[in-house]
């Protein structure tokens, strides 16, 4: 066996050696380049019309083993055409071709085993008229064959076509296309049969430049490495295009769309050319390492001119910065001031028909992760920006299209925000339906507030807002059409605006726009509820307020509508409220209530306000004035009449007030004002006090009654009328007068006629009686004091009538007597005050009378000399200055005194008179009767002659004394034991009286038949004085 093998191998090697020798002889001796080259040149000339250059042609075997090949060196086709960059059409350094001659000889199959083009250039040119430099074939002179029923491709097997380092230029001026390919290396193999083509192409080139000036398209591809393989069977093409490395620059229309972009793609693709159908199978494409995965089909229906798509895609983790880098320069401005990064992933599908009016349905899922964003207008950098959204659209129909935001979150250094929801109506009016949550640290937003606003904000705000709005609504600020609701919680919130501050430890704000459950049909625009543990607000060195555990519920109509009065309903409650300003402060426990504002029912331009308020203890301090109320309840209904100029008339109030346990302390009052209870109803015309009790110092009273015509009074249409019942156990009249001093009065001499019209409890001037007021106070006072005077059981009416204070028929008891007093006090002007009295004292003890009314001693000093009881009537009036000093020139008065069984008090005056008249020293000083009248006129007091009967004497006394206490009296003894009538003149003053006997001046005074005319006149006057005084008592 070994021997056989040995012989076989030796034979085989010998055969091979002979074969090699034979081939070598053929190549190097028979078919030398010198012999072949001329043959080729000759044959080439037959097929090529242009000039050709062939350096050498040689037969190869060993380099193309096991086939023979033909190697051509320095091959060139020269076809100069005007305009062409070069006259050389093709120049090849080396061209090697290997063809399977046996196959072609036996089966007519063209099997190109190898074609290698090594080094060279191709320059293809076509001018604008279609003259080309590649039209180098001679015209076909053979007659055209008869129409073939069917042309079949010969079988072609391209085993290997290889191009190395070839430059290609194609310049077509008619197409305005200029293409340059440099350093092209390519490998092509494939087969072409009668009904199929299959092959592989591998291409590498250092640069491809395509300039398509018609469309202003410039493309440059560098370092292209591509592989194409596939099969064409009739209309069906199946293959794969793979570009593994390339750097592409693309200019289109002057815009640089790509700049050295690394483009790779791998496209497994099936194509049906008759259907214009393309199917991608896991195709991938990437730009700058951003990979896109495509699957699906595209078909162009040339009949219906529809492009049917059924594609799915997927991209994963595309760096947003890289995406933005691909944005053409002219669009870069949209990103000015924006620095954004992150990873974008997406998957989805594109299905449906595309034509001029229809777009396929796109279902895209976008995922944005690890994003960052810096925006110059938003000074806070965002990080951890994550988004998950789905875009579903046909780019045409609002009914189909939407964007669903499954999740969007972002964080600032200290805050976070997230939102989710739907965006619909993408093409007409974008509609958002979003739910947004946020946790904001407000401190970091201070940098966004302009310094000119002098505002700082601190604390945290967190909450959730649901919103539904359209972009047009936002642009037009149509809040009435939006739906916004949410809840926001403020923690350690502190905002300062200039010197104004607002703080809250924790507040929760709920709001809804619109209000789905409004309290009234007009307050459905917005609802807000603010619940706070503690709120403090204030202005530095000015005012401050603090609310604890407060709740505020607000509903309004659209308050932006300035053409109408808004409807507002506000309910409030809180544990306590404190407020202060300057030296004023107020503290309220448990205030709660409701305020509503609405247009007037008759005149819609006139606001109507209603207030319902209740609170516990209320304390106020204003300077040295304090007020405390244990409980307040009020219900007010306030209407506006904007046709009025006076603000008091503009606001008409109706309602009630209920106060309990009030206490007022005022620096101007030495005593506290206690208000056990006040219940009053009021409307614009009527003020009705149902119940009121008050204690002022030593005074206490209950006041009930009505005040009418209040509105008419302030309109100037009517007098203010009132009727009250005043019941008091004890009343200090002086204090009450001080409380109402000065209302509605003015001094005619004052420049400002409204001067001194405000109520001023400080007694800084005279008491000015209110004008245009008719108020009756039916008084029932058990004990009243005014200065040192006291009175009990005071019953009567106190009336204020248009500037006049009238005590009308007031009856009362004093220690001296039962009295009746009518007094009038009016104040025409501040320094001209009228005081008049009509005073009747029945059965009065004269000494008590003098004690009670010391001024009577000045008027009638002789009364000091009498003791006992009598009756006294006086009517007097005078004007006073602003300090209540009597203007003596205006003093007028008339008085009458009558008494029986009086005792003439022993004294120096009586002794002197008795001595002069020779009275019996044993005579008792009893005066049987006394009836005297006197008048006061300015500083003169005239005592009209009156008769006194004492013992066996009758005397008439008359005279005058003045306020300077000088006297001029005369005593006529008209009846005495002596047969003479004596008279005594008493003149001088209290310290120096002179007593002189004189003629008995009134000897016949009480004898009618003997009276003279003057005496009659005096008696008439006495009668007139007495009767006019006595009439008052009868009344």
């Amino acid at each position, binding site marked *: 066996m070994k021997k056989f093998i040995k012989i076989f191998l030796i034979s085989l090697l010998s055969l091979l050696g002979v074969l090699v020798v034979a081939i070598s002889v053929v190549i190097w001796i028979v078919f030398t380049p010198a012999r072949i080259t001329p043959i080729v040149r000759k044959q080439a000339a037959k097929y090529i019309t242009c000039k050709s250059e062939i350096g050498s042609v040689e037969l190869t075997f060993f380099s193309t083993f096991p086939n023979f090949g033909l190697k051509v060196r320095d091959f060139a086709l020269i076809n100069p055409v005007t305009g062409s960059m070069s006259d050389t059409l093709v120049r090849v350094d080396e061209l090697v071709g290997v063809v399977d001659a046996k196959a072609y000889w036996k089966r007519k199959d063209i099997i190109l085993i190898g074609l290698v083009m090594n080094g060279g250039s191709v320059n293809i040119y076509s001018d604008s008229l279609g003259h080309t430099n590649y039209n180098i074939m001679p015209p076909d002179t053979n007659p055209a064959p008869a129409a073939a029923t069917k042309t079949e491709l010969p079988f072609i097997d391209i085993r290997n076509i290889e191009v190395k380092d070839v430059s290609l230029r194609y310049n077509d001026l008619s197409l305005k296309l200029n293409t340059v390919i440099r350093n092209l290396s390519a490998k092509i193999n494939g087969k072409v049969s009668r009904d199929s083509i299959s092959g592989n192409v591998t291409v590498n080139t250092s640069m491809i430049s395509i300039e398509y000036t018609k469309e202003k398209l410039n493309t440059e591809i560098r370092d292209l490495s591509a592989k194409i393989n596939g099969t064409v069977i009739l209309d069906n093409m199946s293959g794969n295009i793979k570009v593994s490395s390339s750097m592409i620059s693309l200019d289109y229309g002057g815009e640089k769309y790509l700049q050295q972009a690394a483009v790779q793609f791998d496209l497994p693709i099936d194509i049906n050319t008759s259907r214009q159908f393309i199917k991608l199978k896991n195709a991938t494409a990437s730009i700058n390492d951003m990979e896109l995965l495509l699957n699906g089909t595209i078909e162009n229906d040339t009949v219906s001119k529809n492009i049917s798509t059924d594609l799915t895609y997927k991209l994963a983790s595309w760096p947003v910065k890289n995406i933005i880098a691909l944005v053409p320069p002219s669009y870069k401005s949209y990103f000015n001031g924006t620095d954004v990064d992150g990873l974008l992933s997406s998957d989805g599908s594109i299905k449906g028909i595309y034509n001029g009016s229809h777009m396929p349905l796109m279902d895209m899922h976008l995922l944005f992760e690890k994003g960052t964003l810096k925006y110059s207008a938003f000074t806070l950098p965002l990080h951890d920006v994550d988004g998950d959204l789905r875009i579903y659209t046909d780019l045409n129909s609002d009914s189909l299209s939407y964007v669903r935001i499954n999740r969007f979150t972002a964080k600032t250094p200290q805050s976070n925000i997230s939102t989710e929801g739907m965006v619909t109506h993408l093409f007409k009016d974008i509609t958002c339906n979003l739910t947004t949550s946020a946790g904001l640290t407000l401190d970091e937003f201070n940098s966004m507030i302009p310094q000119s606003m002098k505002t700082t904000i601190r604390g945290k705000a967190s909450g959730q807002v649901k919103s539904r709005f359209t972009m047009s609504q936002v642009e037009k600020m149509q809040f009435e059409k939006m739906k916004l609701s949410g809840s926001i919680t403020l923690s350690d919130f502190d905002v300062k605006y200039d010197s104004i501050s607002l703080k809250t430890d924790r507040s929760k704000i709920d709001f809804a726009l619109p209000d789905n459950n409004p309290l009234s049909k007009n307050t459905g625009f917005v609802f807000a509820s603010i619940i706070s543990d503690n709120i403090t607000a204030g202005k530095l060195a000015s005012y401050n307020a603090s609310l604890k555990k407060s709740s505020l519920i607000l509903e309004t109509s659209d308050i932006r509508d300035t053409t109408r009065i808004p409807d507002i309903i506000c309910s409030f409650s809180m544990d306590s409220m404190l407020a202060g300003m300057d030296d004023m402060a107020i503290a309220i426990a448990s205030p709660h209530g409701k305020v509503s504002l609405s247009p007037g029912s008759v005149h819609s331009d006139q606001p109507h306000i209603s207030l319902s308020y209740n609170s516990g203890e209320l304390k106020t301090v204003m300077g040295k004035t304090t007020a405390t109320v244990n409980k307040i309840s009020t219900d007010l209904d306030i209407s506006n009449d904007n046709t009025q100029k006076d603000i008091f008339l503009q606001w008409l109030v109706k309602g009630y007030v209920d106060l309990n346990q009030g206490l007022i302390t005022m620096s101007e009052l030495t005593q506290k004002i206690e208000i056990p209870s006040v219940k009053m109803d009021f409307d614009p015309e009527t003020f009705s006090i149902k119940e009121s009790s008050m204690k002022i110092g030593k005074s206490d009273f209950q006041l009930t009654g009505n005040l009418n015509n209040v509105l008419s009074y302030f309109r100037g249409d009517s007098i203010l009328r009132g009727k009250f019942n005043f019941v008091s156990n004890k009343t200090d009249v002086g204090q009450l007068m001080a409380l109402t001093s000065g209302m509605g009065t003015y001094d005619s001499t004052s420049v400002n006629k409204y001067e001194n019209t405000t109520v001023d409890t400080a007694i800084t001037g005279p008491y000015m009686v209110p004008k245009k007021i008719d108020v009756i106070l039916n008084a029932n006072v058990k004990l009243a004091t005014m200065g040192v005077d006291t009175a009990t059981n005071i019953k009567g009416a106190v009336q204020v009538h248009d500037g006049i204070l009238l005590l009308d028929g007031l009856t009362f008891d004093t220690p001296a007597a039962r009295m009746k007093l009518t007094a009038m006090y009016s104040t025409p002007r501040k320094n001209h005050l009228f005081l008049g*009295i009509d005073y009747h004292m029945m059965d009065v003890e004269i000494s008590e009378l003098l004690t009670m009314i010391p001024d009577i001693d000045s008027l009638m000093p002789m009364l000091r000399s009498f003791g006992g009881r009598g009756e006294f009537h006086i009517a007097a009036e005078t004007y006073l200055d602003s300090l209540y000093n009597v203007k003596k020139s205006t003093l007028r008065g008339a008085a009458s005194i009558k008494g029986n069984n009086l005792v003439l008090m022993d004294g120096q005056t009586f002794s002197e008179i008795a001595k002069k008249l020779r009275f019996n020293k044993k005579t008792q000083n009893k005066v049987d009767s006394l009836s005297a009248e006197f008048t006061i006129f300015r500083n003169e007091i005239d005592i009209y002659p009156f008769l006194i009967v004492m013992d066996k004497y009758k005397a008439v006394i008359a005279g005058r004394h003045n306020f300077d206490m000088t006297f001029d009296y005369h005593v006529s003894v008209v009846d005495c034991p002596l047969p003479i009538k004596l008279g005594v003149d008493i003149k001088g003053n209290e310290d120096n009286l002179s007593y002189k006997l004189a003629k008995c001046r009134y000897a016949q005074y009480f004898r009618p038949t003997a009276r003279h005319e003057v005496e009659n006149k005096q008696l008439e006057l006495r009668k007139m004085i007495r009767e006019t*005084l006595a009439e008052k008592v009868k009344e």
Partner: protein
Amino acid sequence: MIINQFIIKSAEMMKKTLRYLTMLTVITLLAVSCTKEDVTYDQTLLTGKWQSGTLFYKYLANGTGGTWDTADNVTEAEAQAFTWTLVKDLLTQIHVLQMGGSVPKIYTVTELTATSLKYHDNFGKSFSFTKVGK
């Protein structure tokens, strides 16, 4: 002698008698001459405004009037009312009180001309006025 003496005495007595009669006549005449005569003044002269220092009186023809004293910061418009009568030389002013009642004042006029008014009361207090207006 005796006759002469008688005559002389009678003459002396006659002289005394005549002296007494003369004295009586003189006294009688004096007495008669001292009796107050009725004086009547024209009350139309009284109407008008009269001033005495700061004190003013205004008499109106209808028997009413007013008085005021500017020293007490009272103006004419604020004058206090009275009624007046002038009967012969007796001027009666009745000042009417707003509260009811009246205060009569009686004066005796001693001079009343177109420009001057003088009167006194029963207590010897005199007043002198000058007319300052109608």
